[in-house]
């Protein structure tokens, strides 16, 4: 059992700082010859019948979850159905229009002007104007909201947000940012009606393809198609969301045909096999959807010593970890969190060398190191990863004791508190956001607590650099520096296996979001 999210802050909100570029790939397109067999069937595409109600099982964020997009407790499976952002990430990672149709910076990128879509109305019939957009950003920045995105948007000067007319929004920045709109693609940035802070958590009034019918925290809720949606009426008539805490219970619900889609349930190999065996269920694989990481807390012994960090990176064999932990559903990462298909990707790897690792440890006075490695049932893949890693570093004389922490307080009590633990991110951030978020000394998501002036200087330089080739060089230098010095262990990028009913067509998953508009049931 377990896996009720909570403990005040929901870790899930920290993970999806961007949408993945991956789409449902139908048949299992395994990257590196999986011997255990692949998932031969996936989500179907093709004609969907008009209407129908889709049933989605989701893990509750917390028994105090809300529909306020800016909140750390947001029930975000609903968000994409109910709301729109000003801009969102397109399929190939670029920023594309949503409620804003055009945007441009001033000369020094300290002020951005957004042109807003006209004729859009909220579910309550109120027209969408620039006042709503301005209110949304101020709401995120409001300390009372305690939004996780507030830190990211702290470069925004709330006083300088202006609305010259109903369909123009001007946002002033404290410091220049050449790619500021990418920061607004985060799902915390969904647009809510002006002045709705107090009620939005329950009402869920947005401009999205579905309107809220009912909502109970950590329980059932329902949305119905919004016929007036500016993008056109969605295929489905409605969606029922059921909050089911236990992973196993969610799988059982799918197998018993009580639900159609398991949202936010990356299946491990075992679960995937079980779902696959179901008569009416299938598994869809999204490649490289997840960055599997083991953050070494650089502020805690023994990882304060860079030689120990390097030793850990040399000690394990990423290929064997990928094989054991994920049955080769993934791509070896060599401790670089940037996915290989990123345009700025640096093909740089330090090959595994346990003897050198041992030597480094000796130099650091940490021979025969014994350490706790924390894991949790938060995701079914965590413990296999921990076990595979433990087995692999043993070659370098490192002994890891696995500690299984309760999943619900894992991200409040273990993550960023213990020297070594298992964690994950979804892929799909732009490289700038990714590197700044992971390694910027000011970032609250810097999970290795790495405060390195060289790194900060590199990141600052790249933002100022306008020459594309030089940018690329800087980004690649930064990646190499990360691989050599940071505290982040990245064994591999994992595929995400999602369980869904064979009745579901046009399933497209984008980080935390679905393509709610087109998903449907088999005709």
């Amino acid at each position: 059992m377990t896996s009720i999210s909570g403990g005040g802050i929901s870790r899930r909100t920290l993970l999806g700082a961007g949408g993945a570029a991956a789409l449902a790939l139908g048949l299992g397109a395994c990257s590196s010859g999986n011997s255990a067999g692949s998932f031969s069937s996936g989500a179907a595409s093709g004609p969907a019948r008009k209407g129908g109600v889709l049933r989605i099982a989701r893990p509750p964020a917390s028994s105090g979850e809300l529909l306020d997009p800016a909140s750390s407790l947001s029930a975000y499976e609903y968000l994409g159905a109910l709301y729109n952002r000003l801009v969102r990430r397109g399929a190939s990672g670029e920023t594309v229009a949503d409620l804003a149709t055009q945007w441009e910076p001033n000369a020094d990128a300290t002020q951005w002007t957004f042109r807003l879509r006209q004729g859009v109305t909220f579910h309550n019939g109120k027209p969408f104007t620039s006042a709503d957009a301005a209110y949304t950003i101020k709401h995120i920045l409001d300390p009372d909201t305690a939004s996780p995105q507030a830190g990211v948007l702290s470069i925004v000067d709330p006083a300088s947000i202006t609305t010259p007319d109903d369909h123009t929004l001007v946002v002033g920045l404290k410091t220049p940012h050449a790619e500021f709109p990418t920061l607004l693609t985060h799902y915390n940035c969904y647009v809510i009606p002006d002045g709705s802070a107090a009620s939005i958590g329950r009402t869920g009034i947005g401009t999205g393809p579905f309107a809220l019918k009912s909502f109970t925290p950590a329980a059932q809720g329902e949305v119905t198609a919004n016929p007036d949606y500016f993008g056109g009426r969605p295929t489905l008539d409605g969606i029922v969301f059921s909050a089911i805490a236990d992973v196993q219970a969610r799988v059982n619900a799918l197998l018993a045909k009580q639900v159609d889609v398991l949202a936010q349930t990356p299946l491990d190999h075992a679960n995937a096999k079980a779902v696959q065996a179901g008569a009416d269920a299938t598994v869809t694989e999204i490649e490289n959807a997840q960055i599997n990481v083991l953050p070494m807390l650089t502020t805690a012994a023994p990882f304060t010593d860079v030689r120990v960090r390097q030793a850990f990176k040399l000690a394990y064999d990423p290929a064997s970890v990928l094989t054991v932990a994920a049955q080769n559903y993934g791509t070896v990462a060599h401790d670089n969190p940037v996915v290989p298909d990123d345009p700025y990707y640096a093909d740089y790897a330090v090959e595994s060398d346990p003897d050198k690792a041992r030597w480094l440890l000796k130099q650091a006075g940490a021979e025969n190191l014994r350490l706790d490695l924390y894991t949790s049932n938060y995701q079914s893949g965590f413990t296999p990863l921990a076990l595979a890693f433990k087995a692999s570093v043993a070659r370098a004389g490192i002994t890891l004791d696995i500690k299984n922490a309760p999943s619900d307080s894992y991200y409040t009590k273990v993550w960023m508190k213990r020297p070594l633990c298992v964690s994950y991110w979804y892929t799909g951030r732009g490289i700038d956001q990714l590197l700044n978020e992971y390694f910027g000394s000011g970032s609250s998501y810097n999970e290795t607590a790495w405060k390195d002036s060289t790194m900060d200087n590199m990141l600052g330089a790249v933002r100022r650099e306008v020459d594309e080739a030089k940018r690329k060089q800087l980004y690649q230098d930064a990646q190499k520096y990360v691989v050599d010095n940071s505290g982040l262990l990245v064994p591999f990028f994992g595929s995400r296996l999602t369980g869904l009913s064979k009745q579901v067509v046009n399933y497209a998953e984008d980080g935390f979001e679905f393509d709610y508009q087109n998903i449907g049931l088999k005709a």
Partner: protein
Amino acid sequence: MMTLSGAGRRRWGAVAGVLTGSRSTLIGFVLVGAHLVLALAAPVLAPYSPIVNNGALPIDAPSLAHWAGTDQLGRDVLSRTLYGGRLALTDTALATIGVIIVGTAVGCLAAYWRGWFDEVVMRIVDAVLSVPTILALLVVVTVAGSGTWVLMLAVTTVYAPAVARVVRAAALEVIPLDYVTAARARGERAFAVLSREVLPNILDVVLVETAMRASWVVLLISSLSFLGFGADPPSPDWGLMVAENRSMLAVAPWASLAPIIALATLVIGLNLAADGLAKSLGVDRMRGGVA
């Protein structure tokens, strides 16, 4: 004395009689004994390491190489189950001993001293028993973390009160008897009276309690592991194994069934042993009910 006295021989004869008292008792002791032997001999019997992963052979059905198949990480289920027995028996033994020692001591003293001590102890026992077991257990484990010693503490907190109550009731039957009165009239100290006169005569009750509690402790510890509060991976703890492999029960039943069968046979063995002891020692086994 070099030779076994007549009484000594008879005592051993009685023990043998208890062990073979009935067919089901015999089955019980054989089951527990087999678990003991398998646990002790696990390093010899187990064909593989219980914790080494084998990426090449995940979720493999039982075969000649892996009699009970492999799990998600390619580990040999049979070897894990065999080694799991060591853990189950050690933890159970430790926790049960804690439960029995604390429960017996408190129960005996309450029965002997009576008065305010008895009142206070029994009220506390009532209060502890009134909190649902799982809740009490979760609270202790959350307060103190996890690990063998915490487990002992947690299980003792939860079960010792029930044992104390049963032992107290048994001691109350013995304490008014003349031989105890005789000891008190001689002026023996409380400890001497309890250890020499009372304890040997409630030993049957304590023994039956031990076997019965042990069976519950096995279940409780496995439930804790199942909930993620017990052993940490890659420990081959049975409850943990069930938790790890439960999801693929439909496609790879061997990985869950092996620990379930091991768990069930151990508990059945302990239960049958408790039954047999109770029967041949003439103890009302259910006097404590369930707690």
